[in-house]
């Protein structure tokens, strides 16, 4: 790790992606994500990579399909309305089992919405968005450092499982500056290894390969028997990801917690402030922060549900989306309440505190 620098999340994730060996980036500008594409336009050519501002989001995501199909580390990014446009390509990549990274710097929706931070794309990211039976691995950062670190992790996971990975960020994390430390650039040798890692299936000029087989990158399987097998195989892959890749953070969770908050990303960040103050006031409360929102940490929530827990609060910057997953984990054992903000408005730590105080009052009655 090098020296700490003060950087916006959008810029930090771009720098980290280049350091992780991404040499192909295609995107179309949109607020509050544009610093990412601006940074790439400056720095990607210096790294010897390809930067291309596509004519549309649709074109950009299909360029990623092409580059990933050639076994390269490729990335695109956008904000909510642009991500909707990319969904077709994302489904195709999932179908063709292509490793690629998509960054969503979420803003208020639906439709064009506004440009302020939101978490309204949770369902889209974790439950589908595109068509067909597929899953994205979805990583949700809560700081600029974590946002940057996730570039490397996203490419690792994408390559490991041959699956698209989404980093589900938001306008606050994209626009905010915080100190960040970067991992070193990949060495020449590491880049060579990265370049060759998918040679057993990807498109490449394989004149030197003695046993060169026909390679095909495709999501069309017109024979139902073949497609059935393919989708079952995808399902098995998703089960493996669920078993191995769940990540979460426990913040001030103890055996005698009376209340738990479940929140991800920016909402979790604000909840931490509320929890610090509530702990000082003697309220036994902790936070579970899913880091992978798919695969979801159901077991971690179930495990934190000790007999002392009276209620759970889910806080999100939407009308209530992740709460459905929390309820699946809780299985009706304790009441699950919700505090949400929409339209790009953030809640304050005080509002979370007031909500918890209200829940305490009800419990005492």
């Amino acid at each position: 790790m090098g020296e700490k620098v003060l950087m916006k999340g959008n810029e930090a994730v771009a720098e980290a992606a280049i350091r992780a060996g991404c040499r192909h980036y295609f995107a179309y500008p949109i607020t509050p994500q544009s610093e990412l594409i601006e940074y790439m336009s400056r720095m990607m050519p210096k790294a010897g990579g390809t930067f291309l501002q596509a004519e549309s989001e649709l074109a950009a995501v299909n360029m990623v399909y092409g580059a990933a199909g050639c076994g390269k580390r490729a990335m695109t990014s956008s904000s909510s309305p642009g991500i909707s446009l990319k969904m077709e390509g994302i489904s195709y990549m999932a179908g063709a089992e292509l490793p690629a990274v998509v960054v969503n710097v979420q803003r208020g929706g639906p439709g064009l919405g506004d440009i302020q931070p939101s978490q309204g794309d949770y369902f889209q990211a974790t439950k589908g968005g595109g068509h067909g039976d597929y899953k994205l691995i979805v990583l949700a950062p809560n700081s600029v450092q974590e946002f940057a670190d996730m570039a490397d992790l996203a490419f690792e996971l994408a390559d490991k499982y041959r699956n698209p990975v989404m980093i589900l960020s938001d306008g606050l994390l994209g626009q905010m500056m915080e100190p960040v430390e970067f991992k070193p650039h990949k060495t020449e040798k590491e880049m060579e290894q990265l370049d060759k890692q998918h040679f057993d299936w990807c498109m490449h000029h394989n004149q030197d390969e003695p046993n060169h087989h026909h390679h095909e990158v495709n999501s069309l399987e017109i024979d139902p028997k073949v497609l059935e097998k393919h989708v079952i195989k995808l399902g098995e892959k998703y089960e493996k990801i669920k078993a191995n890749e769940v990540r979460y953070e426990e913040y001030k969770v103890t055996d005698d917690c009376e209340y738990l908050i479940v929140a991800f990303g920016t909402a979790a960040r604000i909840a931490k402030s509320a929890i610090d103050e509530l702990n000082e006031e003697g309220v036994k409360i902790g936070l579970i922060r899913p880091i992978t929102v798919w695969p979801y940490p159901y077991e971690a929530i179930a495990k934190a549900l000790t007999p002392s827990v009276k209620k759970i609060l889910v806080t999100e910057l939407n009308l209530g989306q992740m709460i459905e997953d929390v309820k699946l984990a809780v299985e009706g054992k304790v009441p699950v309440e919700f505090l949400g903000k929409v339209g790009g408005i953030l809640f304050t730590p005080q509002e979370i505190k007031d909500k918890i105080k209200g829940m305490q009052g009800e419990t005492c009655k």
Partner: protein
Amino acid sequence: MKTELICSGFGGQGALTIGKFLAKAGMQEGQNVSWLPSYGPEMRGGTANVSTVISDKPIASPLVTHPDILVALNQPSVDKFGPEIKPGGLMIANTDMCPHKLERDDIDVIYAPMSTIAKEIGSLMVLNMVAIGVVIGRTGLVKYETIEADLSTFLKKKNPDLLEGNLKAIKKGIEIGKNN
């Protein structure tokens, strides 16, 4: 110790840069820092503002609603954020653009004609540096030397005259912060 600031002014006055320099200096002195700008339509004619937090502990929420310190470069900033300052907090206001004072007696207030001072030094562009000086002169939030070193690295080659003006502006600000 955690200090939460809001720096606010018209777009172009350099309010966001005040937060950035303070945050960067804080980081270089080993503190945790965050810098969260307002972005979007309110920048036009209203207040461009930034939440800056400097703390010895990890920073949970980067959003400042009740600042310890408000740097207000124009009247809308005083009107919007003045009432939100924590009791015992500090407001630094640019009297050249803030004709109406804040009706509060539970906070420390420094009024200074910062635009005039900046013009006397040579350029309205150093207005934000005067404000940085006032903040560190009054509170010691970060060290002058840290900001001087930071400014020197990136201005020395690019524009040595500008460096001199900036440093002069910070020193003048420190004087005001200490003596008012």
